């Protein structure tokens, strides 16, 4: 290194600072949690996206991941449990110039918000969903949810979970999403790339992020540290781009299939809307 290229080892600013609310840090997330990783990938993707950041809005629901909206220095909305997607729908349709991102957790988007998820995907409303899946309800202390693998121990499935979990990419794809990907919090470069692709997609794009929750889910299921969970993602993560999302369930011990499963084009809600209006204007409304 020549003396002209001095690296400041203690820079005043982190490159992500422009997009974080520093006055709200430190954040509430536990050490070993993957939500911060997902947020980092999102911010890096945003910085590379070339989007006008004044026109980017982040909408969250309730839960650990729901707190993301409170940390990003963008127009950001921390709404009610499960309702981030319909709020985002109103925002986007009222101002189509906005790039609307819903950043929330599996309990929020798949359980209480499940109905909104499938309908927004069906309508193909233009928005990007980042769904952090940690297999349990973290904020309330680690209860079972719609993604908890059968047999997993949680505070409300003390004899092992009796329910089959949702396969989230399959649900999103079947509902009509135009882009569906899944990555673990270990595969950060690929995750960032997928978020960037999702941001540039026209229509309902969906990225699932598999995240460690060592404090709660991991503790009860023999993965007591964030590192142990990351090791598991390393050992059991397999990339299968284009695989039928039907095949990507996550079990208690099996492999975690990652990749981009859906990447298609179809008209959005607003495309249909403006086409009909243009036709109406031509024919004088008859």
């Amino acid at each position: 290194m020549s003396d002209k290229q001095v690296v400041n080892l203690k820079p005043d600013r982190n490159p992500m600072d422009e997009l974080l609310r520093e006055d709200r840090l430190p954040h509430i997330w536990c050490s070993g949690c993957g939500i911060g990783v997902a947020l980092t990938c999102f911010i890096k993707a945003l910085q590379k996206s070339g989007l006008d950041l004044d026109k980017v809005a982040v909408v969250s629901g309730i839960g650990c991941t729901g707190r993301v909206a409170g940390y990003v220095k963008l127009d950001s909305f921390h709404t009610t449990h499960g309702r981030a997607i319909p709020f985002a729908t109103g925002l986007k349709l009222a101002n189509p110039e906005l790039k609307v991102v819903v950043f929330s957790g599996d309990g929020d988007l798949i359980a209480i918000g499940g109905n909104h998820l499938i309908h927004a995907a069906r309508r193909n409303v233009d928005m990007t969903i980042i769904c952090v899946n940690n297999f349990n309800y973290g904020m309330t202390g680690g209860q079972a949810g719609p993604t908890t693998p059968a047999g997993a121990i949680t505070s409300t499935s003390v004899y092992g979970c009796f329910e089959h979990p949702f396969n989230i990419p399959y649900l999103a794809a079947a509902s009509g999403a135009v882009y569906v990907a899944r990555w673990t919090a270990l595969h950060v470069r690929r995750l960032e790339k997928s978020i960037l692709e999702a941001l540039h997609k026209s229509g309902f794009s969906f990225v699932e992020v598999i995240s460690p929750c060592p404090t709660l889910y991991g503790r009860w299921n023999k993965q007591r540290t964030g590192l142990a969970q990351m090791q598991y993602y390393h050992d059991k993560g397999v990339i299968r781009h284009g695989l039928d999302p039907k095949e990507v369930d996550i079990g208690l011990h099996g492999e975690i299939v990652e990749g981009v499963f859906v990447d298609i084009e179809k008209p959005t809600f607003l495309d249909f809307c403006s086409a009909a209006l243009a036709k109406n204007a031509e024919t004088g409304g008859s």
Partner: protein
Amino acid sequence: MSKDGILTGEFFMMGDVACAEGAISAGCRFFAGYPITPATEIAERMAARMPQVGGTYIQMEDELASMITVLGASWGGVKAMTATSGPGFSLMMENLGLGIMTETPCVLVNVQRGGPSTGLPTLVAQGDMMQARWGSHGSYEIIALVPSSPQELFNLTIRAFNLAEKYRTPVLIMTDAEVGHMTEKVVIPPPEEIEIVSRRRPTVPPDEYLPYEAGDDLVPPMANAGEGYRFHITGLTHDERGYPGMDAETQERLIYRLIEKIRRNRDDIIQLEEHGLEDAEVVVCSYGIAARTALWPVELARKEGIKVGTLRLITVWPFPEERIRRLAREVKAFVVPELNYGQIVLEVERCAAGQAEAILVRHAGGGIHNPRKVLEAIRRAAR
């Protein structure tokens, strides 16, 4: 219809349709809803009309979604509305609370039908009046307007939008199946004769903007998404920056302001219609369709020599406490016909505080009052 899609003139119009037209005249350009009798005609009218005025109609998957989609649209900078009836109103309570907490201007119309539960989908009631006041959890004030004709439904829908924008709060229109499905003459004035109020906008640069910093009027200026303010909004208890504050002091400061911004402006918000109260010994206090069925019995009672007057509540919430208190010192009794088993009569009784009797003329809904029953109550009150 003008080139920009605005109606003007005299029409023979259904109440629900008049409501939709009132919204359009008020500047509403977004409607999200879910079909439900007897409010569906509002959605149908908006589905046809929104595109003609450059607005958006979207049919949501349920009323939970409808209500919060309206909030999202309002933050997108557009005046927005939804309409429903009892079962949907129950679902909307969740995000009505978010609207109050985040101070989001919007309008929610409830065309009341018989309940509880599915009740009487096609038939009238006024059973949601207390739900309108207390239906969402927590301490708050709400504005609720009650029309008793299609014309008034048109007028009050405009007023609802103006109040929502002025005070940054959801406003309820608590109409009913009779008024909603009634067809009468409705006059729509030319746009230049309609007063329109829009949310006060921030005057400071984005880096100085605090989304919940209010001046003396307690209503903070509102930035819309996408304008560069990069604000944060939350349903959590929050400070002036919009940041969560999990302590009793922040809670007290916020809730006090949310409640006071309505209470201090009661005189501006409350609208009443009074007839024959100068010498009245009995006051028929009613609202909506029940106020119309009370007209004839009041006339009959006057012919019998009973000194009876009418007080029609056009604004039900905030409740006109002061007017009832003053009247209670001057009259013998209030007769309160309502299509429920006693809701607004409780408020009348509270404000009368023993100085005058409050007599309920109850009706479970499914029809309107038999005028004879109202007349009997007036006679009893006069004795």
